[in-house]
C-alpha cells in the first residue's frame, strides 16, 4: 500500500461548487440535488460508487407513503412509538414527503420497481446495488465528477469556513484536492471493522474530519446495535429472523423479553445459539428467497434454513444502524459554516429516536437528508461566489509525526474493538464497564495519533475509530437510564426525566452533555 513514505504522482486538483464525500444513497442524492440546483459537483468515494457502503450490499426497506394519507399517519405513529420519546413527527413527515417525491421521479426515469400480483407498483424496498448503479448513471450523465477509490482524509478550512478536502487514491497513492464552496459529509456511520455486511469502509473518517473543523455530534448514546448473522458469515440481514425460532445447543427453545436481538444476546450469554426460519409461510419464503444475498450463505453452505437449525451470532453495527452522527439543523447544516451532513453520517434521533433506524427509517433518512444537503450546499455555494477557489485554505488536523507501523495499527485497532465490539460492552452496558472503556480508549486515541509513518488511510481510519468510540462511551456515560438501544445494566428502567438528546464532540478532550430535544422545544 502507498502512503506518505512512498510519494506518488499527483492526482486531480479540482475546483467545484459542491464536494460530496461518500457515495452511498445519501451522497448520491446529495450530488444529484446539488447538480439539479445548477452547482458543479465532485463526488469522492472511498470505494466504488455503486458497490460501496451498507446499502449496496443488500435490500433496504424504504417508507413510501402518500402524503396526508392514512398510511402516512400510521407510518409516522409507528416511528413515534418505536422512538421512545425522541422522534420528531414533523421531521418524519418531511422525510416521507421527500421519499415519496423522489421515488416517483426514479420510476419516471425508468427504475424497475416490481409489481405486486394486483398490478400495483411496489416502492417499499430498494435493491441497493441496482439503486446505486442507477443513481451513478444519472450523476455521470449530469456531469458530476466521480472520484472512485478516493477516500477523503482532511478537510480544508479557510477563515473558519470549510473549503473542500484532500484525500488519496488508494489504488495509486496519488493525493487529490478538491477546493469547494460547500461540502457534504455523507460518509456513512462507523462499524469499527466488525464484519457487519457492507461496512468495511465505514470507519468514521467523515466524523473525524468534521470534528477537527469543530462540528459536534448527537445520539452517540443510542449505539448498542447488533445484527444477527449466520455464524462466521457477513450477512447481517435481520429481517428474516422475524420468522425464526431460536434454540440453545441442546435444542431447547430460547425465549426472552424484548426483540429477536435480545433473545440471541441473552442466549449467547449462556452458550451457542441456533436459529431456524420455521415460521415463514411458503409465500414469505419466496419473498426471502428473492433477496439473493440473504441466501448466498445458506446455498453455499448447503443449509435449508426453513427446516434446519443453523448457528447465529451478533455483529456490532455501531452508528450504521445505531443513531449517532453529526448534529445537523433543519437544512442539514452542521455547526461549521460550509459543512453539511446527510444519511448515516448525521444524527438520527429525530427519525429513529432511541431504537435502531436500520432498514426503512435510515434509507428514507438517507434519501431525504441527501436531497436537502445537496440543495443547501448548492445555495451556500451561490452565496460564497465563484472566487472561492482562490481562498487560502488549510487543514485543521495537526501534521502526523508518529513512528508506528502496520503491526502497531493492528494493535491499536484491536484495543479499540475490545472496548466496543463485545456484547458485554455495547449490548449490555454498565456504569463500571463504560468507565473502564473510557480509560482504555484514551490510551487508544493517543496511540492512534502516533501512527504517523504507517499508511495514511489506515492511520486516519484508526484515529476515526478511536474518536468515535470515545464519543460513544462519553455519551453513554451521560445517559443514566436504559432506553431503546442504550441498555444500562445498573439502571434497567426508563427515566422520562432524561428525555433529552446527548451532544458530544472534541478530540484531545472529549465532551458529552444533554440538551432539550428540538421537537420538545417546538411543541412548547
Amino acid at each position: 500500500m502507498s502512503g506518505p513514505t512512498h510519494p506518488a504522482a499527483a492526482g486531480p486538483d479540482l475546483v467545484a461548487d459542491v464536494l460530496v464525500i461518500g457515495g452511498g444513497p445519501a451522497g448520491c442524492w446529495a450530488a444529484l440535488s446539488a447538480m439539479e440546483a445548477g452547482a458543479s459537483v465532485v463526488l469522492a468515494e472511498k470505494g466504488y460508487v455503486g458497490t460501496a457502503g451498507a446499502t449496496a450490499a443488500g435490500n433496504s426497506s424504504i417508507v413510501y407513503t402518500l402524503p396526508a394519507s392514512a398510511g402516512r399517519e400510521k407510518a409516522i405513529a409507528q416511528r413515534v412509538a418505536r422512538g421512545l420519546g425522541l422522534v420528531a413527527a414533523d421531521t418524519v413527515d418531511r422525510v416521507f414527503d421527500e421519499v415519496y417525491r423522489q421515488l416517483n421521479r426514479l420510476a419516471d426515469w425508468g427504475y424497475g420497481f416490481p409489481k405486486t400480483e394486483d398490478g400495483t407498483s411496489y416502492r417499499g424496498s430498494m435493491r441497493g446495488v441496482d439503486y446505486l448503479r442507477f443513481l451513478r448513471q444519472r450523476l455521470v450523465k449530469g456531469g458530476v465528477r466521480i472520484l472512485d477509490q478516493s477516500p477523503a482524509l482532511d478537510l480544508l478550512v479557510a477563515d473558519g469556513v470549510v473549503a473542500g478536502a484532500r484525500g488519496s487514491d488508494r489504488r495509486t497513492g496519488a493525493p487529490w484536492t478538491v477546493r469547494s464552496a460547500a461540502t457534504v459529509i455523507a460518509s456513512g456511520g462507523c462499524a469499527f471493522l466488525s464484519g457487519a455486511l457492507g461496512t468495511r469502509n465505514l470507519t468514521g473518517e467523515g466524523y473525524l474530519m468534521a470534528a477537527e473543523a469543530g462540528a459536534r455530534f448527537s445520539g452517540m448514546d443510542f449505539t448498542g446495535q447488533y445484527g444477527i448473522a449466520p455464524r462466521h458469515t457477513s450477512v447481517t440481514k435481520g429481517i428474516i429472523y422475524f420468522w425464526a425460532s431460536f434454540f440453545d445447543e441442546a435444542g431447547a427453545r430460547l425465549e426472552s423479553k424484548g426483540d429477536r436481538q435480545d433473545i440471541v444476546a441473552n442466549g449467547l450469554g449462556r452458550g451457542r445459539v441456533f436459529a431456524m426460519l420455521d415460521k415463514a409461510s411458503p409465500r414469505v419464503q419466496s419473498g426471502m428467497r428473492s433477496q439473493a444475498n440473504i441466501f448466498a450463505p445458506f446455498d453455499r453452505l448447503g443449509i435449508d434454513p426453513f427446516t434446519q437449525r443453523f448457528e447465529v451470532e451478533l455483529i456490532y453495527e455501531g452508528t450504521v444502524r445505531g443513531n449517532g452522527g453529526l448534529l445537523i439543523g433543519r437544512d442539514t447544516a452542521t455547526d461549521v459554516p460550509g459543512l453539511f451532513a446527510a444519511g448515516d453520517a448525521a444524527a438520527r434521533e429525530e427519525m429513529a429516536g432511541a431504537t435502531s433506524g436500520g432498514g426503512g427509517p435510515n434509507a428514507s433518512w438517507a434519501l431525504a437528508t441527501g436531497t436537502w444537503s445537496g440543495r443547501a450546499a448548492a445555495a451556500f455555494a451561490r452565496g460564497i461566489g465563484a472566487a472561492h477557489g482562490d481562498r487560502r485554505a488549510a487543514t485543521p488536523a495537526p501534521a502526523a509525526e508518529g513512528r508506528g507501523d502496520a503491526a502497531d495499527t493492528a494493535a491499536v485497532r484491536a484495543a479499540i474493538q475490545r472496548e466496543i465490539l463485545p456484547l458485554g460492552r455495547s449490548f449490555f452496558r454498565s456504569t463500571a464497564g463504560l468507565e473502564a472503556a473510557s480509560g482504555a480508549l484514551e490510551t487508544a486515541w493517543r496511540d492512534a495519533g502516533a501512527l504517523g509513518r504507517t499508511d495514511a488511510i489506515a492511520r486516519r481510519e484508526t484515529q476515526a475509530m478511536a474518536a468515535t468510540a470515545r464519543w460513544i462511551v462519553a455519551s453513554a456515560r451521560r445517559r443514566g437510564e436504559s432506553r431503546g438501544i442504550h441498555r444500562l445494566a445498573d439502571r434497567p428502567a426508563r427515566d422520562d426525566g432524561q428525555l433529552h438528546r446527548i451532544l458530544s464532540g472534541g478530540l484531545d478532550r472529549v465532551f458529552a452533555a444533554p440538551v432539550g430535544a428540538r421537537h420538545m422545544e417546538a411543541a412548547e
Partner: protein
Amino acid sequence: MIELVSESRCIQCNICVKACPDNVFDAVEAAAPVIARKADCQTCFLCELYCPADALFVSPLRDRDDPVDEADLVARGLLGSFARNMGWKNAKPRGTDKDLTYRMFEDRDI
C-alpha cells in the same frame, strides 16, 4: 471472503479491480487480476455481480479461509449463482422488477 479468480474464465476486463468496494484486487498485465488484499474483503458478493464471465467466487465465510475447487463449484451450480439469482446478465443490472420482497411485508408490520 473472495476465494477464486478463475484463470480459465477471466477475460481480463478488470471490472472487478475497479468495482470492488474494498480495493481487494490488483490488475496484472496480460493476466487475470490477483487477490491482493483478501483480508479487506467484506464478503458482499458484489464482485460476482460485476463479473461478466462468472469467474469469481466469494465464500460466505467472512473471518476464515475457505479453499475452493473450481470444478466442484461448477458441479454444484455455484459459480455465477449470485448474479443468476439477482437476474444480472453480463455485468448488466436487471431483475429489480422481479424482486418479491413485498411478500414478506404482507405478512407483518415490520
